[in-house]
């Protein structure tokens, strides 16, 4: 039983890690906390559901074509929504773009803008999906990899094959994205802008493009996380806010701006969540990451380091 709980936690953690990776990427590059990030994950899922299954999704086995479409739509929706947030909410309010002075009004602008976007997504989807929660089919049919969807582990007991596959895929994608950001030119530009936006601008790196890249990659990761997460448990359109806060906890745990840290932080938060639910009750699925976030902020205040002149 415990093995199953832990493995389920790790699988959820790998998904959280992907979301946290996007959060951390945006925070590290642009010094903006992506308040709508969790809502984008959930919104991407429901955009896919709405397009492929309609307003009343009946759990069914998706045909191959629909599955592919479903996955692509969700990932695309994540990227588009995240880019829109960057374009509409973040870029006009960005504190550290060259030629603009940093002042409090701007910070308030993107905080409130992010919150407003998240709320807008939640409530707009709520109009189309009024039920408490929806069960979403698995486009990959991981459960059918082995008979019954369960594998036996040494020492007795069974675990869901889904958990193992999600854990492996989630971590794999996370590491691939992390490595490609370390090695690519775009990743280099991102680090340049993160270190010194004005210096980077002088070297011909467009801060705006880097912002769009960061939010775009974060959106793609959000979409992938959504595809992996959706079939695990019934989800509601309101889940996004707490999901985003859980990802923020994971990102802070791993050190904001550290991509590998975000993946690791995700695993820890996922485990913590699973253990809290196992020992304290289902209500702790949301409470554990929220409490962790508050403790982290109180004990290890991050703060964007002020530039010293």
């Amino acid at each position, binding site marked *: 039983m415990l093995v199953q709980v832990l493995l389920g936690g790790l699988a959820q953690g790998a998904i959280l890690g992907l979301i946290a990776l996007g959060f951390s990427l945006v925070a590290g590059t642009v010094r903006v906390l992506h308040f709508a990030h969790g809502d984008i994950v959930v919104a991407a899922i429901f955009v896919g559901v709405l397009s492929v299954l309609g307003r009343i999704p009946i759990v069914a086995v998706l045909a191959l074509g629909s599955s592919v479409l479903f996955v692509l739509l969700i990932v695309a929706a994540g990227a588009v929504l995240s880019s829109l947030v960057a374009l509409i909410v973040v870029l006009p309010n960005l504190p550290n773009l060259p030629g603009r002075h940093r002042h409090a009004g701007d*910070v308030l602008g993107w905080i*409130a803008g992010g919150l407003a976007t998240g709320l*807008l997504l939640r409530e707009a989807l709520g109009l189309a999906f009024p039920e408490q929660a929806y069960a979403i089919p698995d486009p990959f049919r991981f459960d059918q990899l082995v008979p019954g969807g369960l594998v036996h582990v040494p020492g007795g007991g069974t675990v869901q094959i889904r958990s193992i596959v999600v854990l492996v895929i989630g971590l794999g994608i996370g590491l691939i994205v992390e490595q490609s950001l370390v090695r690519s030119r775009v990743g280099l530009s991102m680090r340049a802008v993160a270190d010194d936006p004005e210096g980077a601008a002088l070297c011909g790196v467009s801060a705006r493009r880097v912002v769009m890249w960061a939010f775009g990659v974060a959106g793609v990761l959000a979409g992938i996380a959504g595809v992996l997460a959706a079939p695990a448990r019934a989800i509601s359109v309101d889940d996004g806010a707490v999901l985003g806060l859980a990802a923020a906890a994971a990102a802070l745990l791993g050190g904001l701006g550290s991509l590998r840290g975000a993946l690791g932080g995700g695993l820890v938060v996922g485990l913590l969540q699973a253990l809290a639910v196992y020992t304290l009750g289902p209500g702790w699925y*949301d409470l554990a990451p*929220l409490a962790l976030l*508050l403790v982290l*902020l*109180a004990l290890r205040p991050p703060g964007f380091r002020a530039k010293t*002149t």
Partner: protein
Amino acid sequence: MSAVDVAQALWLLLAALGLSVSVSYTGLPVLGQSAYIAVGGYSVGLLGPGGMGLPLGIAAAAAVLMAAVLGYVTALSFSRLDDSYLALATWALAWLAEGVVLAYPAVFGGPEGLTRPVPARLVSHTLGVEIVLTTNVNLVIAALLCILGLAALVRIDKGAVGLDLTALRESAPLAASLGVPVEARRRTALAVTAALGAASGVGSTVLLGVISPSDISPLLSLQLFVAVLIGGARWWGPVLGATILLALPPVADELASAADVSPEHVRGLLTAALLIGVLLLRGPVRRLIRSLRLIAPSRRRPYLGIAEERSRPAHERVELSAADLSVSYSGVQALDDVTIVLRGGEVHALVGPNGSGKSTLLGVLAGDLGRTEIHINGTPHRARRVRDRLLAGVVRTPQRTVILSSLTPAMQVAVGARGGSRLRLAALRQLLATPRSAIEAQRVRAVVAAALRDTGLERVATTDPARLTVGERQMLQVARAIATGASVFLFDETAAGMTGAERERLREVLRRLAASGAAVLIVEHDMRFVGAVANHVYVLDAGRIIATGPPERVRTEPLVREVYLGLDTDLN
């Protein structure tokens, strides 16, 4: 509108009023007012009649106190954070409150909430009174609390503490450098916010006899946040905001029935639209108001025209010394074994190429960077905060001029004059108009008048700060520093951007400060100005003092010429 509706509206206003103390007046992005309302509402439900059975009055007082402590602890834990993280933390708090209430239905009654007998009764057996809290009584209490709260807000804002708050929401680092107790103000503000939120929760729970998760949803936090953003730091701000919030549900219901969708989501959508609208319109509206000069920086209480104008008290000759200072930032040695002595009666100049560590040295001396030990008049001094060093008599001006755009120059100088004061519980004294507070106000006015006169800024004392010239802005920084009553002055490139005539005036001001016994240090690049103003020069290069002495001698030192002027270097 029935009496219940009116009473409920007033409790909502009280919550908005409380939130505006943090958001509008102190500039803290607090997104967790619903959590404090929850603490109030559920505590009184759990402790009071129908719950643990404590008398209602005691239960209500306990609920408000608990929320105030929670608010104070929130601030204690998170107020050091950047604004964005404070927003994140309080937003998480709002979701946590709702989550806790839903996770323990046995305690909090689940989605249905707690139901309590209505009308509630205030009973005291010792006093032999029993008050039935009918709707009308509840309404009167709510109205009284709102009026008291608004009056207190207006009174605080008009007076000296209002100046502190304006300064700290425009630029917290500047406020700190002028001795405003930034952290303490933030903690108090958040405690007041939480207490009023809790009072609102208590009041509406007692009124309706029920508190449920839908009364404390995070959406309410967002709605209240938008509400107080609209009006800003004006007494009618929360009133306007609460009015708009009250208009929201009927409008949403109307729209929802027209479109045949659930009204709950339409309310959410309207809130989001409101938030976006406020954000988009904030800038243009402010510019419009400014261009029409509807709201020039407040001219009330200009802190001028005081009969009794005391001249600057002569200081004992101070001496500040710091030995073997070393500071490094991630591998770069910014200061390397620097020893510096600043003597009263003298003007010292600190020169050196960019990046040589000048600003770092000033930061260390001003108590801004870590708890480095310095000696003031021979006694060791360690500063936990910038304010500690200021109260010990050391003040520093920022290198970039920081102008508080909503305060006239005279009022900005008054911020400095207040910052140097050790008066405790200033807000409470001001609220109660204690004699000490009146004496303090007199002192501040006298100090402001003297500082403006000393710097020659009387002419522009009540001008819109946006119209000051660069030189006047720099001089304003000097005036603010003088008003703190410090005896050691650290000026960072104050002459930058000044015209010849302004430099001449600055030179006079600095010499006069020194003549009164103060120790003055100025960072400066113009060697001619240094020669004219300074008795003593320190030359800093790559974190080391490479020369020190009178300007004429330092100027001829070969090492200085090499580092500073690039002479005598072998370019082969």
